[in-house]
């Protein structure tokens, strides 16, 4: 729509209109950028503030307040304390490690189980009793609407009799269950996009069904699996409800730790800010570097 000749009033008008739309678009983009980033910026900077800085509402480091490591010291994670033994840091690292183990293993398990099921459903005809393929798919996807509260109390009792309460395994199983429908959703879409002729060729060449799945299909579907894995990882890392009910000391995860701090000691601004930053940073980094996969995963179900 660019005007080739700039010697006429009408052409100049078009250009003015174009500039107006540019300014509107970038204005809106920048406004929303601020809405998205300001809470993160605020948390990160607050973790370097002292109490008076918070009360005066200082915002910009080095300009209206001097950053210091007070908040991170309360986690034992400042340059001064990093070499020393610190119980707070041990506690924090334990929670961090719990969160990592639980979310990574739950996502892995979900991706393995979900991919197998999705592949089977996209390729073969099943009949379990009255259930056909579409019924089985619906059965998997329908788990998504199951609210966590319904399962929470039975699981509490069940885990207590199985001695799985406050254990990582227990949480891993539950988290796998909650993300499984999403994985099936994404992976079914992936497998449907892979032409069957590939496997037919592999079968002709003498591979079995499982052989062609592992050697031919899996490498092609790998990006989709990564997408499903990362999406599950995000959901599991952030899960609070089950962790709050089913863990007490050993298997407590990071969100539970963050939540319990707000309750116990009033609001200790700098340490809370440091703790929150530490809890969100891993996923922020994941988002920045693996954004492509997250978007791919979420887009999978949307566009048929």
């Amino acid at each position: 729509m660019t005007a080739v000749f700039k010697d006429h009033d009408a052409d100049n008008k078009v250009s003015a209109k174009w500039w107006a739309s540019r300014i509107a678009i970038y204005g809106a983009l920048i406004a929303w950028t601020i809405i998205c980033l300001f809470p993160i910026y605020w948390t990160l900077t607050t973790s370097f503030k002292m109490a008076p800085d918070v009360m005066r509402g200082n915002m910009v480091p080095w300009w209206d307040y001097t950053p210091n490591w007070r908040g991170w010291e309360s986690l034992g994670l400042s340059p001064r304390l990093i070499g020393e033994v610190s119980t707070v840091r041990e506690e924090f690292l334990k929670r961090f490690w719990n969160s990592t183990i639980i979310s990574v293993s739950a996502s892995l398990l979900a991706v393995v189980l979900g991919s197998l099921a999705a592949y089977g459903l996209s390729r073969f005809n099943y009949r379990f009793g009255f259930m056909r393929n579409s019924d089985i798919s619906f059965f998997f996807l329908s788990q998504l609407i199951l609210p966590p509260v319904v399962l929470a109390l039975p699981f509490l009792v069940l885990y207590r009799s199985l001695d799985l309460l406050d254990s990582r395994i227990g949480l891993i199983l539950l988290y796998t269950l909650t993300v499984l429908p999403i994985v099936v959703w994404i992976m079914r879409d992936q497998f449907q996009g892979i032409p069957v002729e590939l496997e037919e060729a592999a079968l002709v060449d003498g591979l079995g069904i499982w052989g062609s799945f592992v050697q031919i299909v899996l490498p092609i579907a790998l990006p989709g699996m990564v997408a499903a894995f990362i999406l599950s990882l995000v959901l599991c890392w952030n899960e609070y409800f089950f962790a709050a009910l089913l863990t007490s000391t050993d298997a407590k995860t990071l969100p539970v730790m963050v939540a319990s701090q707000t309750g116990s000691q009033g609001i200790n601004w700098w340490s809370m800010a440091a703790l929150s930053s530490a809890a969100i940073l891993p996923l922020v980094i994941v988002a920045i570097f693996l954004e492509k996969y997250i978007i791919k995963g979420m887009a999978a179900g949307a566009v048929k």
Partner: protein
Amino acid sequence: MSTEGDLLHTVTADDISEGRKRLGKTMVWGTAGLCIALAIWQAAFEAGRVEMGFGNWRPILYAYLLWATALCVAQVMVHGEKGKRTLFVLPAALFVISLVIFPLLFALYISFTDWNLASVNGPQPNGWDNMRQMWNDAFYWNALKNMVYYVLAVSVEYVIAFGLALLLNAQIRARKFFRVVFLLPLMLSPVAVSWMIGKSMLEVRFGPISRVVRELGFEPSFFGNPEIARFMIMAMDAWTFIPFMMIMLLAGLQALPREIIEASKVDGASGWQSFKEVIFPLMLPVSVTAIVIRVIFKLKLADIIINVTSGGPGGATDSVTSFIFREYRDRSNVGYGTLLAIVYLVLIIIFVTLMLKLVSRWMERPA
């Protein structure tokens, strides 16, 4: 929803001996018998009928796992190639069934008991008492009413998300940067968000937003007034979940056939006209998917409420999940809480089924 399977049609001549079939069946029934026998024994031990027993039910879990493995192996032993195909779906199906169906049945049982974890008696069936209590529980109905508000808020989120998706789809520079930034809120855990925004930025004395409000000449009070408190919860939840809808809608926009939009431009449609007449109708299926999934996630809303307001003021921000969470956490009322959860599940199933039915009928109608 999907094409029926059988894309990869294989014909195999399996020659399975009778002995192999029998062995497979014996494995399944044997392990099942072992599992049931152990369970009965342990139940008898806990009831005090048998002297010897296990400290907990863990051995029964192992027996169950053994049975599940045997069932999977037996598929191949008994059915050959067909069994190998079943093996794709069976593990996931077994996993979901054992982790959903059994707990649900158990939940159904405890929801008709007066079980309180603090009481020594253990669960005692009490018929319809819980139901009657629920009927008169104003707070539960209030929480359900709040859920209606929360779900309605999805429409506003949808409008914002669509706007952002359009912005990201426009001819802009640094698209990747904006996409990453817009995605970030989704990555943050609701618990961290409830501290970062709910407890710190909205803090009445020092929070930056309170400061702005005071500069504008109002007295900031975000969680005192029921309406404002509910709005604040909605806003925080929207902040984390708008990226989710935005990404889905953006994917839909990018998959639109470019020729049609260009054709509408050639025909002289203004920007608004081509949006209203071309883009929006084409986006309907994607929009519906995004909204349905978002509503399903919304129905689970709890973390932010538990951590910021714990339902206050006076239950104005309670969601059903956060209400039951407190019923359980503070009062250990397992029986009653479970009944509330079951009722909620039934309501959700009815609501989602109706929604899907309506949507599919509406989509079939010629526009």
